[in-house]
């Protein structure tokens, strides 16, 4: 069985974030949450946080060239602290742009990380045999 996921908006009438609570986290974490923001212009962030205090984030939005190691708009803030240090933010392995496909990609990457008990697969983009 995989951990149950429950989604809710932070405020039904004036929402800023869709919070997806997970009944289990990566590694030692007992539970976790993925906070999702998506704008009408197609910018997004998927932010993972868990009870062990581990944070990481996939994002796509203008950053004014601040993330100097990032080619396009898609980027990844690595764990354990979802660093925004311009030298640490990397290209994201997710290059799809539609809601359905980005969400599926995040779910897929998270599943591989969960089953291999490692953070690396979250931005590798493949699941080799």
């Amino acid at each position: 069985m995989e951990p149950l996921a429950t989604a809710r908006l932070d405020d039904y009438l004036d929402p800023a974030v869709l919070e997806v609570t997970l009944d289990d986290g990566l590694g030692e974490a007992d539970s976790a949450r993925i906070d999702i923001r998506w704008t009408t212009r197609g910018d997004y962030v998927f932010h993972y946080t868990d009870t062990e205090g581990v944070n990481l984030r996939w994002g796509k939005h203008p950053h004014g060239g601040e993330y100097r190691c990032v080619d396009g708009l898609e980027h990844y803030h690595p764990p354990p602290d979802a660093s925004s240090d311009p030298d640490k933010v990397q290209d994201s392995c997710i290059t799809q742009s539609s809601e359905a496909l980005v969400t599926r990609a995040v779910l897929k990457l998270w599943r591989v990380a969960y089953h291999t008990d490692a953070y690396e697969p979250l931005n590798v983009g493949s699941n080799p045999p």
Partner: protein
Amino acid sequence: MNDQNQPDEFADVNEVVEDEWESETTPYERIRHVVAHAYSPVSADAVADDALTTPKTARKHLETLAEEGFVETSPGEHGGTLYCRSPESLVVEQAADILEHVTTDELVTRVTEMRERLNEYRTEYGVDSPEELAVERTNQTLSESGSAGQEIDPETVREWKTLRRNLAFANAALSIGTAEQFVGEDDHSTDESIPA
């Protein structure tokens, strides 16, 4: 960690999600999904690309969705047609969704509260709209006289626009909810009939 339900191997996450989406949905479903979130006009070719289908199929379904009022069309360059989500269908959908989840009392309270917050933006920044605020911000950046007033954050412009949009949906829900009280079920208190 658990050994059951091991995820399948894949070489590229971007390709595998496309394959799975394509096998689990029909072209119509994908086209509807893509255009549902097209808030500015796009071509049938662009929709086809995102929906993993051909321009011909995309155009066929987009025309049907336009007839149903889900999609709005506008003339593009070189005689082509552009498509976007119809604001009317979006408002009606959001209003219905709100009415399903929020009581009328709560709706009334929150609409008042959101209206007050909109007014606070106007008072605080001395302009009537987030668009005007964005113009002020550009001027501020051009003149580089950041010391003169408080610096305007692009986040503020976005929060203001978001609040205005969400208030519009809430207002629509309130109006539709009120209208529904007087439409539909026959009023048996009088013998008068009302033109339909």
